[in-house]
């Protein structure tokens, strides 16, 4: 067997056999609609998804919600954060929601695209970064970026991440948009 075949065999075996099965099962449950008891409310999920899709809108590549970023944020809130951090996130989302409603009289999801971008723009470049709204947005943005770029679809279709390489090239030419 040639080296290339061995590598391919190793990669295939890894993909099929060595998955952490509890993780696969957990994501299958989430995809089927499971929500943890400590997860976000429907209104909070709507706000998270709305902001996430302003950060990463659908273009020639998927949007944030296309690749399940809302579920990812919900999981982190429910199961990864401890009680204090979860409470801060929830309180911050509620504060953003209250701010949106006080200005427009409607929840974020019901605003038109321009209004949504204006709100996210204000959160992204706030006059005061210490407000609960600004801090919550900053935390949420980090989660959105991580959840988006680690999703299976973005890894495969957008970044075209490879697992194995025949060599390490420390000075490869870089062309924007080239496959990784």
């Amino acid at each position: 067997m040639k080296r290339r075949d061995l590598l391919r065999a190793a990669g295939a075996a890894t993909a099929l056999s060595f998955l952490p099965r509890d993780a696969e099962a957990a994501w299958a449950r989430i995809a089927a609609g499971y929500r943890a008891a400590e997860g976000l409310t429907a209104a909070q999920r709507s706000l998270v998804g709305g902001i996430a899709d302003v950060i990463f809108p659908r273009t020639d590549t998927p949007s944030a919600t296309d690749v399940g970023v809302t579920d990812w944020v919900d999981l982190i809130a429910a199961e990864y954060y401890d009680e204090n951090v979860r409470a801060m996130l929830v309180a911050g989302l509620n504060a953003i929601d209250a701010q949106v409603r006080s200005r427009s009289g409607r929840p974020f999801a019901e605003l038109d695209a321009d209004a949504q971008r204006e709100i996210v723009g204000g959160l992204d470049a706030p006059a005061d970064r210490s407000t609960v709204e600004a801090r919550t947005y900053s935390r949420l943005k980090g989660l959105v970026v991580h959840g988006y770029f680690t999703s299976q679809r973005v890894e495969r279709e957008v970044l075209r991440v490879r697992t194995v390489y025949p060599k390490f090239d420390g000075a490869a030419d870089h062309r924007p948009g080239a496959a990784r």
Partner: protein
Amino acid sequence: MTRRETYDAIVVGSGISGGWAAKELTERGLRTLVLEAGGAVTMNDFVEHVRPHQMKYRGYGDPAAMRRDHPIQRECYACDEVGHKFFVNDNDNPYTAPADAPFRWFRGRQVGGRSITWGRQVYRWSDLDFEANAKDGHGNDWPVRYADIAPWYSHVERFIGITGAREGLSQLPDGEFLPPMEMTVVERHAREKILAAFGGERVMTIGRAAVLTQDHNGRQACHYCGPCERGCVTHSYFNSIGSTLPAAEATGRLTLRPNSVVAEVLYDPGTSRARGVRVIDAQTMQDVEYEARVVFLCASTIESVRLMLNSTSPTFPDGLGNSSGTLGRYVMDHHYGSGASGNMPGFLDKRAIGSRPNGIYIARFRNVNAEQKDFLRGYGMQGGSGRSGWGRGGGMPGYGEDFKRALIDDLGGWRLSASGWGETLPDVNNTITLDPTVKDKWGIPAAHLDVRWRENETAMDNDMQVGVAEMLEAAGCTNVRTHGSNNPPGHCIHEMGGARMSKTRDEGVLNQWNQAWDVRNLFVTDGAAMCSSACQNPSITYMAFTARAAAYAVDAMNRGEL
């Protein structure tokens, strides 16, 4: 009821040192029993190709499981969401430390030990290191010099495969290298700038690593997937389960017994020899005794010392082989992590492709040819360069289509960073003892670790930051920022000392052959034997000493001396 079996040799531990003892002893004709406290590991346990989306927490880790099972181990970078299986359960394996002297003991109990998760960096020591204690009076004089160990470095390197570049440095001797991994375009640029700025005194080279850059001894070349610490299905980096243990197995003289917690070395006062070991079966909790003509302790620095301290008798009430009173003393680790990082302008038309499981190394330059600084000895530096890619997005202003496109297409600028790995002076007050009250799951007294950084280490840490920063600036970096380290002892996972070698029996536990002065058929060949820490990663030195000691032991047996 105690069961007994007899072998020619017993090796306690199956990791980096234990694997080498097993290989050398079996290849030299001895029926050898290797005892491993943890369970077996198979290829199906390796998880290096698992992608983040295949992990429930996308690589963040399972916080509840980590808090429950790995409250200490999780501080190690390799104890991640899928790799934590290669680290011990802290509840079953307690240890203690003074409240004002925290210690981090990262441990792997499985066949292969910590050789599965190690950092793979391998650097020969030189006479600058073997003569240091004698020259400045800290610690005892090593009973060996570089010339004694150099052939054994070669012996080890030829078998396991080391990638590296020859540099001709006296303080960092070249080895038997496979082709070097490639430096990035930024690292190559920085190397030349630093060489020019510091008159050739400071040399940035590609890391020397136990990773194959070409097929070697039946193992495949690296496929640059990245996280070696999670295992390797192609055995492209050195661990004992992929190379030394299979070599031992091939002789037909190896017996490997997992789930065997060695509780004590049995001493026969009539012959002044180690009779064998008492093992607690980790699953049945039953005692089993094994006897052999020679016993090799390769359980890791703290475990081997703990085992000797727990092996008491009327002859050795303070621990086996402890007539010198030095057992458990002069414990060291490397203090590490202080350094600097900066942005490297330009090179935006270049990128790295592949995940290189290696970085750059800057050889020690302080106190090499003359005393230069307000501290003794020195440090090496490890680091690397890269472009941040989408990972910068969380802290980058922007949103919307242009923001997304920028994170997908634009890799961000280059960053270059390095941190120091510093030598720790051997100090009699840095100790391993047995905790009088705390026991592990198997009823064995826990180790109590009292190891502290002292004035010399602190002064060196400060200089690391300056040393890196001035090199980054010389290389052309901008926005250079220094960083200090608060890593406690143990965090570097380079524990050394506690059963040191010595020229005379009154100043150490082992002679120049890693043989216990008091118990002639007992050998300790892991990090416990070290008299000083140097600043280089120590594992290859353990391997070389182990192979050398095994050859000596078998020759002595053949001469009828053991």
